[in-house]
C-alpha cells in the first residue's frame, strides 16, 4: 500500500483535514501542538492509499526531545519507498509562519526525490473577509503545486483527491531548487514569499485584537476567565453527574439480573464484586471524561484556551509549570484521569511531565468519601464565630488546600533542583484567531477519548481489580476478609503502619484502596462488619470513634490520602499517556513514601500536643 505523508506546522488544521480525508476522528483543536501521536488511515476516496498524520512541528530543526522524535520520524519516512508523496499544509491566513516550515519540507523532499503538494488551508476564512492568496504566484515561486482548501468546509478537498489520483511525476522530474539551501536563507525567503503572495489586509488581526481587548483586559478578561473556569468546573462535577449516576445505575441493574443467574457461588461473587463493582467503578468515569474533553475541545477550538494559558502563566511559572498546566490542574480537582488527558495540550514535554507530577495531588472527588469519613470521625462538629466557622468545614478546606499546595510545592522544588531538564521550550505562545468551534469533530474526539480510556486503561484496571479480589476472597470464599490472604498480608505488613498508630485493618483498607481511594471506606466497613458503609457512613464513624483510634492516626490518614497515589486508573492512564511505565511506578512509589513519612510526622507531632 502506498503512503502519503500529511505534515504541517502546529495549528494549521492538519488533524481536521486528516479526519475529512480518512473519516477517522483525530484530536482537532485550535490550539498549537495538539497532535502528539502519529496517526494513519486509508483515504476514503482512494482506499489503496494510506494517509499518515505527522505531529505538527514549527520547524525541521528540532529544539526539544519530542520534536526530535517527530522530525526523526519524518526523515525516516522520506527514506521509505512506500511513501509516494508529501502533503504539506500551510495556514493561508498566517503565511510566513507556515512558509518557513514548508520550504524546509520541500528542501528535504527534494533531497529524497519525493514530490510535495502544498495545501493552503483556511481559504474559507480569507474568502469570508474578502482576502486573496496568490496561489498561482506562490506555486510558481515554490516550484510546487499549491491547492487552496478548507479543512472545515471541505472546499478544495476534491481537488486534493484528484491530485492524489494522478500518476506521480517520474523520478528526476521534481525540480530541485532548494536542495543545498541553509535554514537561514529559507527564513528570509519565507518572509519575502509571504509579503509577495500573502493576503494584504490585516482584518483578521484587527478582529482578533478587538476580542483580545476584552478577553485579556485586566477587569473584563479576569471576569470572563473566572466565569469560563466556573462553567468548566461545573461541567466536571455537576453536568457529568446525571450520566455518571446513569452508568452506575445501569451497572447495578445489570448486576441484579446477571448475578442470580449464576449457579456457582464463586462465579456469582466474582461477577458481583470484581466485575460489576470493581471494573464498573472505573466505567463511571467515562461520562466525566467525555464531558470534560468536549468542553476543553470547545475552549481549544474557539481559541480561548491559548488566552487562558496566557493569563495563568505567570503564577504557575513560579512553580515550574506553564499557563497551559492550568486546565489539567483544574480538571484534576474532579478526577486525575481526564486531567492527564488534558495535559496533552502542553507542547513542552518537560512542563507536561511536571504537570503530570502535580495532577495526582489535586484533591480529586474520589478522596471526598475518605476525607468525609475521617473528618466526621476525628473533627468535632462544632462551630465558632456564631456559626460562621465550622471546624469540619475548615478541616475539609484545609486538606483540599494541602493537596494543591503539595502538588505545586513538588513541581516548584523539582523544577528548581533539576531545572534544565524541564526548561525545554520557551514560552512563546501563538494566539490563534477566535472562531466558532466545530462541534462534530469535537464530539467525535470526545467519544474517541472515552473509548481510549476504556480500552487502554481497562486491561490494567481489570488485572489489579482481579488481583485484589482474589486476595480478599480466598481461601475462605469471602466469608471473612480478616481471614483472607489479604487479611494475612495485612497482618504481615502491620508493623509498616504501626508508626502511624494504625493496625492491620487500616493497612488492608489502604491496600485495597489502591484500586480506588473510595474503596477504603467500603473495606473498613466490611472489616468492622458494617454493611453499606460506603452509602451511610454514620455507623462506621461511630465505630471508629469508639475504637479509640488516636486523633494523630486520623490526621495521619488524612495526610496520607492527600498525597498517596492510590488509584490504579490514574496510574494506567499515566503510563499510557507518558509512554512510560517507569514514570507511573516512580510516582506511585515516591508519593507513597512521601505520604507515609508525612503521616508519621503528623502522628508524632499530634502526639506531642495531644498526648
Amino acid at each position, binding site marked *: 500500500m502506498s503512503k502519503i505523508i500529511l505534515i504541517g506546522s502546529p495549528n494549521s488544521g492538519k488533524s481536521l483535514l486528516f479526519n475529512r480525508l480518512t473519516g477517522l476522528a483525530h484530536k482537532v483543536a485550535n490550539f498549537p501542538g495538539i497532535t502528539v501521536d502519529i496517526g494513519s488511515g486509508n483515504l476514503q476516496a482512494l482506499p489503496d492509499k494510506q494517509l499518515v498524520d505527522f505531529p505538527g512541528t514549527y520547524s525541521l530543526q528540532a*529544539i526539544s526531545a519530542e520534536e526530535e522524535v517527530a522530525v526523526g520520524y519524518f526523515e525516516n519516512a522520506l527514506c521509505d519507498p512506500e511513501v509516494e508523496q508529501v502533503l504539506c499544509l500551510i495556514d493561508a491566513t498566517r503565511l510566513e509562519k507556515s512558509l518557513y516550515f514548508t520550504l524546509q519540507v520541500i528542501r528535504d523532499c527534494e533531497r529524497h526525490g519525493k514530490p510535495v503538494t502544498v495545501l493552503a488551508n483556511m481559504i474559507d476564512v480569507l474568502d469570508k473577509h474578502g482576502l486573496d492568496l496568490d496561489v498561482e504566484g506562490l506555486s510558481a515561486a515554490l516550484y510546487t503545486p499549491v491547492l487552496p482548501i478548507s479543512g472545515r468546509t471541505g472546499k478544495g478537498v476534491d481537488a486534493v483527491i484528484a491530485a492524489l489520483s494522478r500518476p506521480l511525476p517520474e523520478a528526476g522530474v521534481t525540480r530541485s531548487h532548494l536542495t543545498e539551501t541553509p535554514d537561514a536563507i529559507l527564513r528570509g525567503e519565507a518572509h519575502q514569499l509571504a509579503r509577495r503572495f500573502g493576503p494584504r489586509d490585516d482584518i483578521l488581526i484587527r478582529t482578533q485584537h478587538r476580542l483580545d481587548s476584552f478577553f485579556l483586559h485586566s477587569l473584563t478578561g479576569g471576569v470572563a476567565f473566572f466565569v469560563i473556569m466556573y462553567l468548566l468546573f461545573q461541567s466536571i462535577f455537576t453536568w457529568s453527574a446525571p450520566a455518571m449516576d446513569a452508568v452506575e445505575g445501569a451497572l447495578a441493574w445489570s448486576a441484579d439480573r446477571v448475578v442470580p443467574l449464576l449457579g456457582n457461588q464463586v462465579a456469582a461473587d466474582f461477577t458481583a464484586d470484581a466485575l460489576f463493582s470493581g471494573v464498573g467503578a472505573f466505567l463511571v468515569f467515562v461520562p466525566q471524561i467525555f464531558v470534560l474533553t468536549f468542553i476543553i475541545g470547545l475552549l481549544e477550538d474557539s481559541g480561548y484556551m491559548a488566552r487562558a494559558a496566557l493569563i495563568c502563566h505567570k503564577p504557575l*511559572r513560579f512553580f515550574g509549570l506553564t499557563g497551559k498546566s492550568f486546565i489539567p490542574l483544574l480538571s484534576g480537582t474532579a478526577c486525575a484521569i481526564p486531567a492527564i488527558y488534558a495535559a496533552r495540550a502542553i507542547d513542552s514535554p518537560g512542563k507536561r511531565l511536571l504537570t503530570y507530577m502535580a495532577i495526582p495531588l489535586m484533591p480529586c472527588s474520589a478522596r471526598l468519601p475518605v476525607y468525609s469519613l475521617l473528618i466526621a470521625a476525628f473533627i468535632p462538629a462544632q462551630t465558632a464565630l456564631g456559626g460562621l466557622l465550622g471546624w469540619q468545614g475548615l478541616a475539609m478546606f484545609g486538606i483540599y488546600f494541602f493537596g494543591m499546595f503539595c502538588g505545586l510545592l513538588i513541581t516548584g522544588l523539582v523544577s528548581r533542583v533539576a531545572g534544565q531538564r524541564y526548561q525545554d521550550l520557551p514560552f512563546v505562545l501563538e494566539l490563534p484567531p477566535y472562531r466558532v468551534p466545530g462541534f462534530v469533530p469535537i464530539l467525535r474526539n470526545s467519544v474517541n477519548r472515552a473509548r481510549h480510556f476504556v480500552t487502554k486503561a481497562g486491561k490494567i484496571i481489570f488485572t489489579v481489580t482481579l488481583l485484589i479480589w482474589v486476595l480478599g476472597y480466598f481461601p475462605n470464599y469471602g466469608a471473612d476478609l480478616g481471614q483472607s490472604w489479604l487479611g494475612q498480608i495485612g497482618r504481615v505488613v502491620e508493623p509498616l503502619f504501626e508508626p502511624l498508630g494504625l493496625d492491620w485493618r487500616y493497612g488492608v483498607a489502604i491496600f485495597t484502596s489502591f484500586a480506588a481511594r473510595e474503596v477504603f471506606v467500603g473495606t473498613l466497613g466490611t472489616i468492622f462488619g458494617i454493611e453499606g458503609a460506603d452509602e451511610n457512613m454514620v455507623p462506621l464513624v461511630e465505630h471508629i470513634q469508639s475504637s479509640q483510634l488516636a486523633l494523630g492516626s486520623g490526621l495521619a490518614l488524612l495526610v496520607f490520602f492527600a498525597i498517596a497515589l492510590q488509584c490504579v486508573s490514574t496510574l494506567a492512564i499515566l503510563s499510557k499517556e507518558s509512554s512510560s511505565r517507569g514514570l507511573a511506578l516512580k510516582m506511585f512509589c515516591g508519593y507513597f513514601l512521601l505520604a507515609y513519612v508525612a503521616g508519621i510526622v503528623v502522628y508524632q507531632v499530634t502526639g506531642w500536643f495531644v498526648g
Partner: protein
Amino acid sequence: MDLSDVNQTLWSLQAGDCCEIVGYDDALAEKYRIRLMEFGFHVGERVTCLHSLAFGAPKVYRVSNTVYSLDDEVATHVLVRKEPAGE
C-alpha cells in the same frame, strides 16, 4: 525612519508601541533564538505590542500577520529599537 531608544528590549514595550528588532542578547539560548526566528522575530522585523497585561503576565505581540505571547524570560533578551509614537 527616525529611530530612537536603541537600548530597549521587547519586554519594555507597552501596548501600542512598535519597534524594530535589532538583535538578541547573549544570554538567550541558541535554541530559543532559533525558535523565535522561526516565528518571524528576525532582526529588522517590525513588531507591535498589542497587549501588556497586569501583574507581569506575558505580553502579546504582533509580528507579520501572526500574534504571539512572550513572557519576560524570552522577551527581555530580544533587543529592539523603539519607534517614536505616531510612526
